[in-house]
């Protein structure tokens, strides 16, 4: 595996590029963080993998990949970064849902990870990231005929419930190579985020014989809590790399705002174990695989009406890095992953997810043997099956990495 020492690159014209990308991410979408699955409604939220597009294309575990990555769950991967870099990932999903015999669809875009890595020669690499953890945005509505007690008046009402927000993580980290074959990394983070849950009952004014304002009840919770991850990367040989990490989930606290009548919530987040590696099969051809294990049983037990499950997620893929497109270095990737989602509604079956993935990496800007700008595109075709619902989705992930500013 090729490594290089930290050094400064000359400033390039990436400032305008960064500005354009940032402006687009910040202003074009009114709801930059939105849900990706109706599974959000069946538990305490759907997990958001804080992975870049490349890791998603190679099986979605993201451990032990070649090169230098910003992956808060594999902190040692950043040990060999030579230039400061910014990572931004965007994901757009298109999903078709079948639930209780009814079909629906939705489209969402989210930005699951933003990150910065900054190497200091002889000291190590520092990391800052903002990533999603649990997505809790979903909604449901039900129209029904209500009999008003006391008068017997029949009133058509629409009950509408919306959950909006989720748990995110702000992390700082440090990675350093401590021997030619061993690098270590650590991150510490804080859970942040806000969840707003609103129930609204709308009355059909004609049937109640007058205009009736909606009944609204709800609340807002702010998340907080601490967690951390340690990891290591071992260069097994010149053709193989192995990485592992342990994440201490810590305690997630949902603190109700002053105007919220709902109770404070404490959730014991699970410890996560990740192992993965990459083997060089041939010149420019890598095989990557990994596994994630986390027991969400305690977390589910802390949330009324929800059960946590044991998540065992497997994924892998191949990457061909010898391609060239428009004169630029490019990589082609294919992968597959399978696993369970961490929550289910009490009494419901577990929610499983699987996906085939394909990806393209483009080296946009190269100079003096260093990569200054890269884009990775991954298209996933997957499904989620919970017995009570089925969800088929396409998901396009785009990661932009810009270095040397």
């Amino acid at each position: 595996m090729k490594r290089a020492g930290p050094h400064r690159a000359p400033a390039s014209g990436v400032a305008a590029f960064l500005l354009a990308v940032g402006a687009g991410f910040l202003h074009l979408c009114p709801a930059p963080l939105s849900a990706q699955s109706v599974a959000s409604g069946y538990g305490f939220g759907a997990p958001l993998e804080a992975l870049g597009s490349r890791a998603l294309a190679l099986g979605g575990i993201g451990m032990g990949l070649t090169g230098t990555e910003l992956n808060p769950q594999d902190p040692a991967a950043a040990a060999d970064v030579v230039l400061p870099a910014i990572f931004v990932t965007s994901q757009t999903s298109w999903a078709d849902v079948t639930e209780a015999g009814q079909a629906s669809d939705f489209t969402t875009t989210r930005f699951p990870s933003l990150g910065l890595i900054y190497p200091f020669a002889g000291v190590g690499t520092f990391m800052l990231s903002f990533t999603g953890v649990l997505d809790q945005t979903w909604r449901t509505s039900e129209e029904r005929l209500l009999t008003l007690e006391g008068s017997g008046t029949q009133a058509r009402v629409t009950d509408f419930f919306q959950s909006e927000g989720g748990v995110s993580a702000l992390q700082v980290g440090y990675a350093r190579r401590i021997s030619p074959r061993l690098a270590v990394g650590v991150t510490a983070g804080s859970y942040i985020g806000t969840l707003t849950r609103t129930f609204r009952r709308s009355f059909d004014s004609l049937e109640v014989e007058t205009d009736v304002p909606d009944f609204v009840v709800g609340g807002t919770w702010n998340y907080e809590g601490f967690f951390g991850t340690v990891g290591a990367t071992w260069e097994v040989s010149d053709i193989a790399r192995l990485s592992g990490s342990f994440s201490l989930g810590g305690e997630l606290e949902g603190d109700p705002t002053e105007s919220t009548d709902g109770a404070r919530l404490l959730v014991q987040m699970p410890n996560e174990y990740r192992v993965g590696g990459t083997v060089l099969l041939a010149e420019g051809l890598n095989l990557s695989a990994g596994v994630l294990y986390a027991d969400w049983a305690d977390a589910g037990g802390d949330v009324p009406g929800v059960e946590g499950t044991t998540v065992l997620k497997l994924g892998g893929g191949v990457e061909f890095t010898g391609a060239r497109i428009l004169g630029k270095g490019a990589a082609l990737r294919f992968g597959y992953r399978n696993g369970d989602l961490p929550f289910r509604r009490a009494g419901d079956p577990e929610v499983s997810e699987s996906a085939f993935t394909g990806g393209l990496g483009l080296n946009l800007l190269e100079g003096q043997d260093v990569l200054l700008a890269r884009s990775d595109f991954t298209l996933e075709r997957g499904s989620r099956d919970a017995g009570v619902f089925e969800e088929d989705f396409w998901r396009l992930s785009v990661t932009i990495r810009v270095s040397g500013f």
Partner: protein
Amino acid sequence: MRRTPAAAALAVLAVSVLGCQESDPTSVEGSLVPVAPQTVEVVLSWDAFGDSVQILGGFGSVDDLVLDVVALDFRGELDARALVRFGNFPLGASVTDPSGTTRTDTLFSFLGGRVVARIDTFRTKIREPLDLSLSVLREDWHSPSATWEVKVDTVLDRTPWDEPGAGPATPVASARWDPAAGDSVVFALDSATVALFADTTGIRYSARIDMLTPGAMVEIIGFDLRLDARPSLNPDTVVVLNAPEDETTFVFFPFPEPPPDGIRAGGAPAWRTILALDVPRVLNGPSSLCDQVGCPFELTPERLNHASLVLTSRPSQPTAFQPTDSLLLDVRPVLVPERLPKAPLGPSFLNVFGLAVDPDVFGETAGVRIPITVTEFVRALLDPESADEAPSTLALLSLLEPFTIGYGDFDGPGDPGEPRLRLILTASDPVEIR
């Protein structure tokens, strides 16, 4: 080399824009809703929420109405006479002389004329011909304050008519109005009567319109005085000049008394009813409420979906004062009850058109319940942050004062159809996080 990142950025932005067509995951599984609110309708009797009722009258003047009422023993109760004062006669008119030249002539000889009264056929339900008369009234009168008994009623002057009912007056013409023939009734005048109306040097003569057909009532939109004049420039021709009405009003008898036990709104001058409320903060019944959501039940603005004051109509008393058109009700808070009857009122709780009430509910179909939405008023009373400053007194009135001589009467406290407060309440456990 720098164009490549820019192109990539555009590609990313394009993808982002595609994703901007957001539609959150929407479940059809209703059981996912984490709360189960209960909605209950509660009707409070007057004793449970009412404090006092006060009827006030005298808002506006008959003179403000756009219609004048003429009636004789209408429903055995009402006499009304219209008074009209015409403006100055035209000072000149264009006349074609014998040579064919059109010139302005200022010297006319009045041969006679007509008073044309236009009747509101939309409101008038009579289908049989009516007889009316026109009399010349020599006495001057004050349009804003004239009544059946007095011709002037101001702070420094209160002068009764020589004869009650705007008299004496000299009858000069009568006419029959056939509803099938049109909306105008024409009173023919001779030259001497026209000359009286033209005299501006002394007393201003005016006209009084009386109903001659017993039991009838009409409402008159307006009057015109049409003059047949012979111009000095061409004495062989007759031209018609028009003298429009200057002031009109009407006087009527009897003047209604406020109901001792009821609620009233409308009329001319207009009536208002002031309702002081004392809405409870806690409910301990009825059983339909307690069975569903438990008692005691704390009334809060959040739990109150709807509140309406339900009034029950009854025949207007006297019945001659039943509205002939929809009564537009309005409800406003009384901001400073201590200053009643001249207390300022707050903004309406209804829309700009008020609440239109069918006039028949104050007559043959009396007993109809009329709900008037007062949700925001009750919510303010229940809100701990505004309860101390929120008005607790309502004024029930006509949207326009005055709008018609008729008014709406409703059952008052203690009557079978006494005012009720209809509440739609929804209670729910707090929404929890999960």
